[in-house]
């Protein structure tokens, strides 16, 4: 069992439809997780980071809709066929424990970049191992799309310089004394 994420096993698919169903599940989960992170940051009044996560949620939602369109008949009432909700988090999903209430825009974007890179690796691995050329082709396309997301995040990162030491210093910390 993995303690956090488990993507060392590359799944195999019986059909293109099944591949897209899985890809859709990954995009749905990523979009929902970014929304959850944005909500957390909004509650803790870190609005700048909330906005970054909302934007990432919007990007993933667009990708989700595009994949859903391609998945077509593989879905029943919006749920992927043969999908378990108890599986490990998808490769594009931010780990909940990675957040800090004072985190900087750079850190938030680095998390997003990490997710996009994992998604690239995931789809590249499928492309390399799929026996069905059609699945391999679509996996390559997905990897390319995720690579494009990495490039977007890289552009975005240029706006934010490296973090200053003490970024996590809170003048009014929740601790009673130290």
């Amino acid at each position: 069992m993995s303690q956090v994420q488990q993507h060392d096993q590359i799944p195999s698919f019986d059909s293109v439809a099944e591949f897209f169903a899985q890809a859709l599940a990954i995009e749905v989960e990523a979009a929902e997780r970014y929304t959850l992170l944005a909500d957390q940051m909004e509650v803790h009044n870190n609005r700048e980071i909330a906005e970054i996560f909302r934007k990432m949620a919007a990007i993933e939602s667009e990708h989700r809709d595009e994949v859903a369109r391609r998945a077509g008949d593989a879905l029943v009432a919006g749920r992927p066929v043969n999908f378990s909700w108890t599986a490990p988090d998808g490769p594009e999903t931010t780990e909940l424990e990675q957040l800090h209430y004072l985190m900087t825009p750079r850190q938030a974007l680095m998390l997003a970049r990490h997710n996009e890179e994992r998604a690239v690796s995931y789809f590249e691995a499928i492309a390399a191992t799929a026996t069905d050329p059609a699945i391999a082709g679509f996996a390559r396309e997905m990897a390319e799309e995720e690579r494009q997301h990495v490039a977007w995040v890289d552009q975005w990162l240029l706006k934010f310089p490296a973090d200053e030491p003490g970024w996590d210093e809170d003048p009014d910390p929740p601790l009673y004394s130290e």
Partner: protein
Amino acid sequence: MNMIPTEVRALKPADYKSAVKPVWCPGCGDHSVLVAFQRAMAELALPPEQVAVVSGIGCSSRIPSYTSCYGFHGVHGRALAVASGLKVARPDLTVVVASGDGDGFSIGGNHFLHACRRNLDLTYIVMDNRIYGMTKGQPSPTTESDWDTAIAPGGTGLSPFHPLVIALASGANFIARGFTGDVGGCAKLIVDAVRTPGFSFVQILSPCVTFRSDQQKAWKSLVREAIVPETDDPARAARRLMTDDGFNLGVLYRGKRLPYQPRPSDNLTPSHFESEFAI
């Protein structure tokens, strides 16, 4: 390919989310428990209106308001008492109880023993961070004896409570442990707990990022899937749990006790209860 019949109502984790945004600290393990709960309900395909989430007091006990299920944010330590009453009156509902280590094992410690003993068909999730987080970090029943802080200099010197051992000795029918670093694993345990008849106890190690920032990393390096398969033999389970270091994950005991479920009386009316309370 097997297709899910179109007439089946497909429920997604998002269907169990309420409009209330969680106020837990970013990075808190309780967020993972909420996600795991939502995934578990979707996996079980339980309509939200058929599920009741009952809690006590503390950070973890905020969870009912974050779900679209029926909820009851109750009195400190009394979540199991409320949930027991609800399950007796409405056996048709799936009742999930949420608590923390302070609420569940200290203030509610006695209810815990008797809920295990009674063995109603309840699922009890305890988000254990070994601290009272909501009240700024006092040691709880599961805190290590030597945990040294300004609020408990030198540590409490008291042996920690062993909730899984107590649960087994008191008669719980299902005992499991999860870790919030593995959301899918926690969801799986909750599914298993709900499906197993009787009192199901799931301890979820849920780090407190604010008052115990050391936990996250330390626990991640310590947890591992239990190498011994689950057992239905209480004696074997007792031996295992007595020597457990608190970091073995998975289903550790699944018994065969039939749940206690008194038959609701058909002829009781509200006036009957009023008469019982008359002075």
